[in-house]
């Protein structure tokens, strides 16, 4: 009996020791091969949790510190305008075929008191009591966004978030967007996107962001087209089979390809991309209007 108990004790000790040593050994190996930072070794997998919080911190900076707390998680999800703007939600390719990204984020910067205050207390709603009401005179409580180059203040947090979790592709994409759009730091944006692609080879979001950089900033249409085609291919490989695929990304890619072909006078190909876009767009009528417009132009001999 005693021998059996001793054996069980030894086995338990071995198992406990293994669970303790294994992650440390893995981290040490990573560090020795130059693929992990001291932060990785120190925090282990916990760094991913920190990465999400740091990413939210960047969004809090985008809102000038007026941001929902962890007690208001629903409001926090609604408030994520930093990512929305960077993902190109203001780019209405479907509607009029023009890229309104620039105007889009300026609009964001200008609007104050975003929407009506909801009742029931908490972030963005009517105060519940005098303490909350008084606190609003002392703390940032007006809905504002960074603008006119102030977006630079988010960048350290995005970079830190990407360092903590290199799999968080949004951090690379969002940082690259603001770097090239607001700060005109195209080289830095490209470098950061390449770093993201090194950690996430062939990620469709990063390829799409790289294509936008080539199209909008470098005007290198050939490279932009190649990148968008690669992004489309990778989207189909990685997202198509999912239960809830990222259709917004697909429509952005298709919209980008259509716009690029319009710029090059390739109207037939643009129409083809618009037809694909129509299937996933939340505004199929607007896309159809665009298709009709291009068909008319094609008939008039304005393009190929």
């Amino acid at each position, binding site marked *: 009996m005693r021998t059996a108990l001793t054996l069980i004790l030894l086995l338990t000790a071995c198992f406990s020791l293994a669970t303790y040593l294994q992650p440390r050994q893995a981290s040490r190996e990573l560090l020795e091969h130059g693929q992990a930072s001291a932060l990785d070794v120190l925090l282990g997998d916990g760094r991913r949790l920190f990465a999400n919080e740091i990413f939210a911190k960047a969004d809090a*900076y985008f809102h*000038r*510190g007026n941001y929902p*707390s962890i*007690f*208001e998680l629903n409001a926090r999800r609604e408030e994520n305008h930093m990512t929305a703007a960077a993902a190109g939600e203001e780019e209405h390719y479907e509607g009029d075929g023009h890229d309104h990204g620039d105007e889009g984020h300026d609009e964001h910067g200008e609007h104050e008191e975003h929407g009506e205050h909801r009742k*029931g*207390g*908490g972030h963005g709603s009517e105060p*519940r*009591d005098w*303490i*909350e009401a*008084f*606190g609003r*005179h*002392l*703390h*940032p409580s007006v809905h504002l966004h960074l603008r006119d180059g102030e977006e*630079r*203040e988010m*960048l*350290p*947090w995005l*970079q830190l978030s990407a360092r903590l979790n290199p799999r968080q592709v949004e951090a690379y994409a969002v*940082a690259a967007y603001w*770097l090239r759009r607001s*700060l005109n*730091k195209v080289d*830095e944006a490209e470098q*950061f996107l390449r770093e993201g692609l090194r950690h996430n080879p062939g990620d469709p979001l990063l390829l799409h962001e790289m294509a936008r950089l080539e199209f909008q900033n470098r005007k290198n249409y050939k490279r932009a087209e190649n990148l968008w085609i690669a992004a489309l291919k990778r989207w189909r490989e990685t997202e198509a089979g999912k239960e809830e695929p990222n259709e917004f990304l697909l429509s952005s890619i298709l919209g980008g390809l259509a716009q690029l072909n319009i710029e090059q006078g390739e109207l037939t190909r643009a129409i083809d991309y618009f037809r694909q876009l129509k299937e996933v767009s939340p505004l199929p009528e607007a896309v159809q209007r665009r298709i009709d417009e291009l068909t008319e132009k094609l008939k008039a001999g304005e393009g190929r």
Partner: protein
Amino acid sequence: MNKILAVAGVVIRELYRRKDFYVLFILTALMTLLLGGVNFFNDEQIVGYLKEFCLLLIWISALVIAVTTAARQIPAERENRTIFPLLAKPIARWQVLTGKFAGCWLAAGVALVVFYAFFGTVIATRERTFPVADYFQAGWMHWQMLGIVIAMVLLGSIVLSTPAANVTIMFIVALGILFVGRYLNTVAVRMDEPSSSIVYTLYYVIPHLEFFDLRKRLVHDWPLVEWKYIGLATLYAWAYIAVFLLGSFALFRRKALN
């Protein structure tokens, strides 16, 4: 008044004789300067993260100085038996306590002036501006908050048996209020009775230290707070200071010192 100031003077002298302040200031300065040297995307105008980090260190340091200084005042006098010659002089117990409070609060204020001057200088090297009024508001509110904490710690030093317990509990209370205090009403409405009423009562009873935290305004370049709200917040702080000091007087008056 002279008696109170004399006791306060001793406490202030104690602060600059001890090494706590110097160590915390040097640590804050070193860490801020190191972080200031980090390059983000070759952009030297990025300053928000530096402000946030430096202010966080200032808040931690000031809280440590205030709590540890206040927590050892009465127990040290009792341990060293210096309380007896002190009270043998024509000075009332409430005057001793008020003097201790005033000394700790003024010492914390002096430390804050040094910290905020350093903060302003570092930020001025990046932003090329020195918004005195903003720093004054932030520093003033910070000082009021420390006043409440010091009064609370003095009360704790009379109620609790050891300075270590007092320091630990007061840190937990102060940090808890700073992090969660303003959200207790949000939490309470999601709870069932009687927990909801208990949490809501707690929400109304605790001193809302987070009122005095203007760091976000400095970090994100918000305009000045209207002075009338600074005035109201100051009165709010003084009311809590008075409550805690009166509680301390009442307990200390009847406390056996041997």
